[in-house]
């Protein structure tokens, strides 16, 4: 199931060999650059770049299929709802109206609205390959180590490492408990009334949470006994020094972010690219 997503498999290629820190920085820079810009040309450029990296990282489609379906549904719903709530938002942003056809006086289809919504979809779409690359090619322990290196407190980084480490366990626990309760006759399907279903859900929930609380006790005692948190700093077994490729990749992504801001400030004069004036 989705737990497979955290099955980190080591490969030897350009993207995998970058440090977790580099990948995080690149991910943040590139997603922020598309988040900031509403210029469809620049977004297409970033989309192309992120697909290039996706190819280089040798991720197979099978690994990301579920995610792609989810994203497609989400984008479709967002597209429809945006139109339903604000069919004239494009006109409001770009200041002109080029009508194509109309359903009634409120719901008209304008070029402006189309541009706005297509741009928005591309914005989200271009962030997705980046997120997948980041999730699938980063070693969790190494990632925590590199977070600590950029100044995140090691306790917070350790919490994140624990999350990544225990997430698959938690899914297994959830499935075990859920199946055990269902075999005792708890119905979770649509056949049951909503109120009963909620009550049945609580019966899965409570054991899951109480085992988690026990586990918290166990792990924190083990860590305390080994002297965790005594000193201000700690070293990381999985930490990796930055190489030449890391610096190149970081510079490249910083340049893309700077480019996005520059295009908005100097070329368009705002976050939106306006071809209608």
């Amino acid at each position, binding site marked *: 199931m989705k737990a497979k997503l955290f099955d980190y498999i080591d490969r030897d290629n350009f993207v995998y060999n970058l440090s977790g820190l580099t990948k995080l920085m690149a991910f943040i820079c590139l997603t922020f650059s598309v988040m900031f810009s509403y210029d469809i040309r620049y977004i297409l450029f970033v989309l192309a770049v992120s697909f290039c990296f996706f190819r280089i990282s040798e991720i197979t489609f099978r690994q990301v299929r579920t995610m792609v379906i989810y994203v497609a549904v989400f984008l479709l719903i967002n597209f429809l709802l945006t139109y339903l709530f604000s069919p004239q938002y494009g006109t409001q942003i770009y200041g002109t109206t080029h009508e194509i056809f109309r359903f009634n006086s409120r719901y008209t289809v304008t070029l402006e609205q189309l541009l706005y919504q297509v741009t928005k979809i591309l914005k989200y779409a271009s*962030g997705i390959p980046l*997120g997948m690359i980041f999730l699938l090619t980063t070693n969790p322990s190494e990632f925590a180590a590199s977070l600590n290196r950029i100044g995140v407190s090691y306790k917070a980084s350790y*919490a994140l490492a624990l999350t990544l480490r225990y*997430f698959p366990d938690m899914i297994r626990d959830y499935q075990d408990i859920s199946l055990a309760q269902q075999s005792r006759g708890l119905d979770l399907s649509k056949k049951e009334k909503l109120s009963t279903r909620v009550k049945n859900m609580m019966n899965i929930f409570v054991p899951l949470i109480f085992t988690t609380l026990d586990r918290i006790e166990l792990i924190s005692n083990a860590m305390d006994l080994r002297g965790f948190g005594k000193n201000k700093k700690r070293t990381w077994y999985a930490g990796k020094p930055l190489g030449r490729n890391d610096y190149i990749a970081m510079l490249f992504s910083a340049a893309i972010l700077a480019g996005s801001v520059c295009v908005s400030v100097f070329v368009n004069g705002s976050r939106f690219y306006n071809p209608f004036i």
Partner: protein
Amino acid sequence: MKKKLFDFNTKTIVATGLGAALFIVLFMYVKIPTGIPETDIKTAYGVGAFFSALFGPIAGLLIGFIGHGLSDAILYGSPWWSWVVASALTCFITGLVYPKMKIEEGEFGKADIVRFNVYQVLANIISWVVVAPVLDIVVYAEPVNYVFTQGIVAAVCNAISAGVIGTVLLLLYSRSRSKKGSLTKE
């Protein structure tokens, strides 16, 4: 042991890590549909509120941030940052109730229930009706009425989730603890 508002010891760290993992699992698997698209009653927020009340605002902040960020990343490939921030804020504000609670000592009476719920309702209103839509508009330039409708629905759903699930869990947990001074000398 006296509780401080911003405690961050080994136990908090582990609770944060495992709490966030739990948050992700519930976020992905256990939702109760409301009939409005993109808005389910997410049981994850109930657990988020529970952990925040039990382990404090810092744990809550990180659980909301890591939990929502990672589950978005897993489901959609990329986190929806404005909502991730709102999640973190909800759990943080709910966590402010932490120093006033004595759940570890088995005490969770009517006054505590009311206090917990006041905090979580306030937290949900601030994060989902104010912060999330404003960030949506500033960061993503989403249409105004769309995000506010979404925000209000989300606030109601999450407040129900935190109120029902959070309260029930806290009650059950406090009962499983032995009360302070429950031993008598014979």
